């Protein structure tokens, strides 16, 4: 016996609408909250069943994880719904197998032969293989987004991604070549293309998202990073070269191979410090740039009258990674201790324990990555978002656009995407 609650409370989803009022329209936030224990149990099950079924279970496992993640996300109080099924994924995979196996087989054989036939053709073969895989990977990613968006619904209305995956992949390849030739200065052009194509093709029901960002805007974000990266790499190489720590002649590689040439200790230390500086700076820079880019794209995107903003901070993203690195270090130390113990006792039991620990940590890696990296990142991104003029979404009608029948086969075969 109930039904005494008033309409106001039932419309709880809309309660936040009136809270933050800007520019006359209503604004709302995006929430992300899931049960970590539920997700953990699910991930463990996925690992076990996946192993027992030679990987076939992964389609069912993935679908369960996505349902948890999607349903944990709510916009204006209404949850996203993941409508994809494992069957679609599995059959998409089978179709991809039928199509992909011959293609990959021939590509693999060609590269293999170039590898075997000598150093020159090896280089050509490797480059061709890389170009092929890179392009195909972009293609698969686009199709993956399309499938996921088409299986994402909010308030009973589905998202969709229009456009051509093939066209996207070819253009990304071209812009990637441009940014490689220009030593990184073309990278904002590549990003501009990607954001433009992806966002302008994203639809919700019969409404289309629009991206208004400019190449200039991206350069404003990227130029310091590109410059700093070049200075650091150039500087470090010059420094190491000046200290004879790095002999860049071709012969040195051969000499090292044959054990004729060895780095002295001091050079090794310099080399290590140089590497560490490069690695740290580049990591922090890439996080920062990605965060700024995300905020830029949020600000530059509109949906009819609605606009977006994000207050994602570099610090919050860095903290997630630092926590992960600390966890990783603890894991390494524990593993090191275990190796020492095994070496000390060298009994069969110790070796068994070691193998078992290795196996468990192998299984645990993906689970930890999900729980400590992906979930916190998704949470941070969701919580940083604000949507203005939210009420325009209410006027969106469903679209009759065809959605893909089976999903993600290529992406799955290529191992694209985190979950």
């Amino acid at each position, binding site marked *: *016996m*109930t*039904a005494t*609650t*008033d*309409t106001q409370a*039932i*419309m*709880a*989803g*809309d309660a936040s609408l009136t809270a933050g009022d800007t520019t006359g329209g209503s604004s709302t936030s995006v929430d992300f909250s*899931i*049960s970590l224990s*539920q997700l953990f149990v699910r991930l463990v099950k996925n*690992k076990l069943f*996946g192993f027992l079924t*030679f*990987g076939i279970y*992964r389609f069912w496992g993935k679908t*369960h994880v996505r*349902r*948890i993640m999607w*349903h944990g996300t709510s916009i204006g109080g*209404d*949850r996203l*719904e993941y409508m994809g099924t494992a*069957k679609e994924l*599995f*059959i998409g995979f*089978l*179709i991809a*197998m*039928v199509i992909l*196996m*011959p293609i*990959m*087989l021939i590509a*693999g*054989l060609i590269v*293999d*032969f170039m590898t*075997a*036939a*000598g150093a020159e053709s090896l280089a050509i073969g490797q480059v061709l293989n890389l170009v092929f895989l890179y392009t195909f990977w972009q293609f698969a990613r686009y199709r993956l987004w399309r499938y996921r968006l088409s299986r994402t*619904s*909010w*308030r*009973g*209305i*589905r998202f969709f991604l229009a456009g051509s995956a093939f066209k996207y992949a070819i253009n990304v390849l071209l812009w990637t070549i441009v940014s490689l030739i220009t030593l990184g200065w073309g990278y904002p052009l590549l990003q501009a293309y990607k954001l433009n194509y992806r966002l302008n093709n994203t639809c*919700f*029901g019969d409404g289309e998202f629009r991206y208004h960002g400019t190449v200039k805007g991206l350069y404003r974000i990227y130029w310091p990073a590109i410059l700093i990266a070049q200075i650091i790499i150039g500087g470090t190489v010059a420094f190491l070269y000046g200290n004879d720590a790095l002999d860049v002649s071709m012969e040195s590689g051969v000499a090292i191979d044959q054990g004729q040439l060895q780095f002295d200790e001091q050079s090794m230390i310099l080399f290590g410090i140089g590497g560490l500086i490069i690695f740290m700076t580049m990591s922090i820079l890439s996080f920062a740039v990605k965060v700024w880019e995300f905020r830029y794209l949020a600000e530059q995107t509109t949906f009819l009258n609605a606009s977006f903003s994000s207050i994602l901070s570099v610090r919050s993203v860095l903290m997630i990674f630092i926590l992960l690195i600390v966890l990783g270090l603890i894991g390494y130390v524990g593993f090191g201790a275990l190796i020492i113990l095994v070496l000390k006792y060298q009994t069969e039991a110790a070796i068994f324990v070691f193998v078992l620990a290795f196996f468990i940590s*192998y299984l645990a890696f*993906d689970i930890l990555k999900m729980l400590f990296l992906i979930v916190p990142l998704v949470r941070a991104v969701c919580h940083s978002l604000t949507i203005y003029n939210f009420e325009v979404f*209410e006027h969106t*009608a*469903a679209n009759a656009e065809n959605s893909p029948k089976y999903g993600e086969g290529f992406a*799955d*075969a290529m*191992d694209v995407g985190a979950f």
Partner: protein
Amino acid sequence: MITSLARFFDGKTAKPHSVLLELTETTLQVKNDTGDMLGYWPYEVLRDQNAGKGRDEVSLSVGAGDHARIIVSDTVFINELEKKCPDLRKRRPTSAGWWKPYAYWGGGAALSLIVLFAFVLPFLSLQIARWVPDDIRADIGAETQEFFVKSIAKREKIPPETAICMSGDGQKHLDTLISNLAAGLPEELPEVEVTVLKTKGANAFALPGGRLLVFSGLIDLADSPNGLAGVLAHELAHAHHRHPTQLIVSNAGIATVFSLLLGDVSGGTFLATMGQMAVGSAYSRDYEREADETGIELMRAAQYDISPMIPLMQTMAKKNEVNETGVLSLVNTHPGTEERVTLLEEAGTRGGPALSPEEWSAVKAICK
């Protein structure tokens, strides 16, 4: 009467509607604010679309293809609804013929896998092996030999130059022996060359292009020159049929297919390796059978007695049983020893010795 207010999305627009729900005997009645009846949602098809259990909210739907949703967050009402509708959180019953796409595409994938492994890959590897020009095969052979020499030198802890045995006249006699055997082949090989490597293992390999590698352990093990000659004839037959090149091609193909099939499953690499070994050894068994037959023909053509190969092979099989080297060994991938012995016994004892006693002792001393 059990009722609750709820939010209704009609699946046509994203606009929320406030509705009044009422539980009747077999259906959920949905009325709008003003009391007009919007519809009856039968319990038997009613399902909760939410993923998390224990949530105090349900998202009701009446069909997989139906996008209309009713969101209820009244826990008392949800409890009552669960009683009326026990299937609320169960899976929707599968439609008739649900298995068809699985069967068609699964069958298609399985069929293409079988066709691939049974016909396409062997055919392709044979064609590629034939198509690859002699100089490239010779290059691959030379590279592989260099790799072998290097890794054996590393294992035996000796400089690479001394890993190749060249003492005395042994090499000369081996060269003569191999050219006598090669004379029986219908076509000339680009590079017939025997190299003896100083290592304890009893093994011999054919490399692309016609190079043969013999481990000194095999020479130590052989009691008669004809046993060694039989092994060389077998390896020469591999080279003639371009088996090494075919093996490289088919292994690359198998590896590609398995890595695609297994995706990112934990232990996928392990499973892929197992699968590769299973399929790969099936191929190599075919190659071995072919090489055995041609090897016998070569021995016959050179008028060498092949019967001393029988005890040598049996010793090698026994040795390899005990001392599993882990690398691709001559015996592992070969057809069963008994089967091969039968084949050799059928070949009889015609012919004479492959080397004179003096020549044989020179070969025996090649690594000294």
